[in-house]
């Protein structure tokens, strides 16, 4: 098995080298056959890496402990289903997974790009293959998943207990796929730059793949939050940990990109800015992989510690330097054909959006590297924890939500104050009304009121637009559901964007609710005793222990009451793994749209008492609902449609914008 794996890795390297040099020489010699042959080699890379993947899985299944990686991450007692998780529990397997994912993405790009970005496809292929070769070469020379031990151990060391959770089956692979997919829009943009096709040819493909990478990484992050919430047992979902930050930063920069690329798609502007932005986004994605593979900062995610990270830092440095060299070589051809007409226009609003997103990314990066700076200059490692990010990024996020409520209703080219007044009167009044009602209802923390008010602004603006659009179609004789469906279908990037904005509002609601109004209590109970937390009464019934091959499962039974109504029995659980001297908890969560009751078993004492930590987390459920809604928005936005006739046909309240345009003439 291991031999087969090694051979297929070498084969993948050979294919990558052939494909890269072939596409380069083919362009050089103007030989379409050679280029085609190189692209065909790209189609074969997923095959070679698929065989490598299969052989590692085979080694896990057959408990081949001579393979060092299997011995380190598996054991005879491990359930078969955890092979999937054990596969990427360490660096070597993760690298194989990432390379396999990248090879599949590359094949898809070549397949779908053959029509849209034909002229720059060989160059895009070159960039993709260089990235792929890097991963394969690191595996072959530095972190081989098929490396052998001299002696064959009788049993493996087993899998890290924290990884034994349903979330672990999807969170890491989705996250890794998301990070590596950033290479695709990067390669498309670089392909355009290298080939000199610096116009708008690459924009549609770049946007599509940018959004795909964005949603995969976003899903990976959300799944990670869910995993943290349900298993790490501290009642929260986001800790601004360096590794979380390292997958958050590329996501934020990509968010900026998928907004600003719309300006190039619609208006042919920002031709210089968009390639620069995607280079930065890929740089952050590489930085993320560097931190993940054993970077210099402490983290709760330190599963695969090694010095491998520095190779990634080197690769990131080389990528950034060479990309920006290419960028500056093409600098003069990247001038926009059009200029900004007014500071009060959708284009300008997109610029502000980009500024805010990039500032958030920078603040986060600054927080991640500051401990190193502090260590160098004052010899003391300072912790940069959640309070820093909440204080600095929090207000920036509120500004972004405000922009999200206002910017979609500013017309392209130039708006007048009257346009704005007409579009925003109703949303602003609703937002203020919501804020006042909340204060009267007892929500008095100023930041919370502002956050909820801004959410109301966004929702009211979007609903107003939907209702108006559907009504005007209804007047032309369509029934309401048909009118609404055709409205959405009529301009999918726009209305898909609105759905995504609504999802972000849900996310913001959940985050604001749970961070401003969280309640936490530690209670110690003997069996039969009960305690009050908030409105709830929690009664500890008892616990039982179950001995398993590798762990002891202690499961407590608690009954929850509110105002003497029995709400149900819940079973928080704590598993202890003697081999690792480590415990993992499964919180019992009673989730409602208003709030979550969250019970973690802290410790079971000798005298039969148990310590529970109880949280009441308002609105958290909406964070998880935001995920599928975000996905829906992306599907709507990406669903193919015939191009909208002109860029200006669909601006909101177009009549007045046009009239002000005529006035300037």
């Amino acid at each position, binding site marked *: 098995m291991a031999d087969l794996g090694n051979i297929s890795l070498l084969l993948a390297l050979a294919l990558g080298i052939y494909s890269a040099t072939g596409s380069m020489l083919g362009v050089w010699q103007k030989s379409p056959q050679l280029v085609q042959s190189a692209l065909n080699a790209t189609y074969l890379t997923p095959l070679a890496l698929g065989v490598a993947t299969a052989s590692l899985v085979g080694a896990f299944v057959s408990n081949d402990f001579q393979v060092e990686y299997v011995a380190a991450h598996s054991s005879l007692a491990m359930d078969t289903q955890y092979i999937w998780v054990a596969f990427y529990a360490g660096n070597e397997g993760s690298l194989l997974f990432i390379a396999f994912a990248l090879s599949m993405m590359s094949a898809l790009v070549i397949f779908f790009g053959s029509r849209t970005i034909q002229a720059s496809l060989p160059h895009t292929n070159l960039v993709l293959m260089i990235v792929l070769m890097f991963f394969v070469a690191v595996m072959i020379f530095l972190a081989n998943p098929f490396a052998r031990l001299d002696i064959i151990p009788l049993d493996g060391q087993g899998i890290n207990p924290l990884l034994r959770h349903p979330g672990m089956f999807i969170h890491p692979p989705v996250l890794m796929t998301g990070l590596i997919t950033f290479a695709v829009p990067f390669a498309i943009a670089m392909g355009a730059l290298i080939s000199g096709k610096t116009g708008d040819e690459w924009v549609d493909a770049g946007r599509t793949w940018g959004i795909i990478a964005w949603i995969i990484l976003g899903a990976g992050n959300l799944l990670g939050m869910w995993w943290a919430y349900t298993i790490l*047992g*501290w009642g929260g979902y986001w*800790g601004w940990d360096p590794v979380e930050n390292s997958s958050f930063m590329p996501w934020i920069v990509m968010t900026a990109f998928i907004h600003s690329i719309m300006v190039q798609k619609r208006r042919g502007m920002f031709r210089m800015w968009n390639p620069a932005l995607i280079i930065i986004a890929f740089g952050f994605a590489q930085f993320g992989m560097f931190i993940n593979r054993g970077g210099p900062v402490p*983290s*709760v995610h330190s599963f695969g510690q090694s010095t491998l990270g520095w190779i990634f830092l080197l690769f990131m440095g080389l990528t950034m330097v060479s990309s920006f060299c290419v960028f500056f070589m093409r600098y003069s051809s990247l001038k926009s054909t*059009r*200029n*900004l007409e*007014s*500071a009060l226009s959708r284009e*300008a609003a997109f*610029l*502000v959006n980009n*500024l805010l997103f990039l*500032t958030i990314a920078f*603040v986060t990066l*600054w927080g991640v590297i*500051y401990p190193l700076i*502090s260590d160098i*200059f*004052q010899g*003391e490692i*300072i*912790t*940069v*924890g*959640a*309070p*820093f990010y909440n204080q*600095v990024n929090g207000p*920036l996020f509120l500004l972004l939500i405000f922009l999200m409520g206002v910017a979609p209703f500013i017309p392209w080219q*130039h708006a*007048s*104050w*009257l346009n704005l*007044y007409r579009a925003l009167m109703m949303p602003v*009044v609703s937002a*203020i009304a919501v*804020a*006042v009602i909340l*204060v009267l209802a007892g929500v*008095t*923390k*100023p930041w919370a*009121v502002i956050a909820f008010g801004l959410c109301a602004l966004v929702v009211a603006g979007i609903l107003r637009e939907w209702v108006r659009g559907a009504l005007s179609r209804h007047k032309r004789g369509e029934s309401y559901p048909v009118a609404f469906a055709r409205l959405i279908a009529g301009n999918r990037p726009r209305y898909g964007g609105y759905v995504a904005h609504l999802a972000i509002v849900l996310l913001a609601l959940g985050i604001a609710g749970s961070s401003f109004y969280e309640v*936490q209590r530690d209670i110690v109970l003997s069996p039969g005793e009960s305690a009050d937390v908030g409105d709830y009464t929690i009664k500890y019934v008892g616990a039982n222990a179950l001995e398993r091959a590798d762990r002891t499962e202690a499961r407590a039974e608690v009954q929850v009451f509110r105002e003497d109504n029995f709400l149900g029995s819940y079973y928080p659980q704590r598993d202890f793994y003697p081999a690792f001297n480590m*415990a993992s*908890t499964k919180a019992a969560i009673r989730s409602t749209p208003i709030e979550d009751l969250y019970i973690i078993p*802290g*410790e079971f004492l000798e005298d039969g008492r148990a310590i529970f930590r109880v949280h009441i987390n308002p609105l958290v459920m909406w964070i998880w609902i935001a995920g599928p809604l975000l996905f829906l928005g992306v599907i709507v936005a990406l669903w193919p449609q015939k191009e909208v006739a002109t860029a*200006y046909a669909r601006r909101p309240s*177009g*009549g007045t914008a*046009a*009239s*002000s345009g*005529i*006035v*300037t*003439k």
Partner: protein
Amino acid sequence: MYCDAKKVMDTVTIERDNPTWKVLLTLTLIAVIAVLFIIVAGCASSSKTLSQDDLEAMAQGIDKGLMCPVCPSETIDQSQVQIANQMQMIVREKLAEGESQDEIFQFFVDRYGAGILAEPPKSGFNLLIWIIPPMVLLLGSGVLTMIVLAMRRGHHGQVEEELPTASADMEPYLSAVDQEIRRLTQESTRDTTKDGPNIQSFEGKVE
């Protein structure tokens, strides 16, 4: 001359019986009142005496600000190891003895160094981490403003591109506006050159 400018404004404001600025002013007033209301309400609710629950809430706030010394990247509030629990006990004891949050933080900093704090101190060298982000935002805003200005200047040199025609039912209305403007422009050019700046400033507004 001043009157002239006002007349121009009046005629061009597209809906005369809907004075935008009045509404904007009202909205601003409402917003200001709402914010004041929120602040007052917030202050009113926070001026209660300290109960046991408030002490616990304060203790939890302090827990969130202290890192667990043995586990990477977790506060003592999150961590479930023994030393974190002991530190939580110390926090509660000291609060009960009447020590302030800063005194408690200082107690732990003396023992473990400044790295025990989750939030970098806002003093000395560490001011750097707090100052850089707003400076970057300011710098970014400055660059952005310059870009916008430069791009707009570039625009004035360009030929105005073809604008989309508005919907058919707006057409008669718009041509009326056009005529009105042509008439006014002619009128003002017939006046002395002093009126030049007024026309310009009005054009800037409409854009």
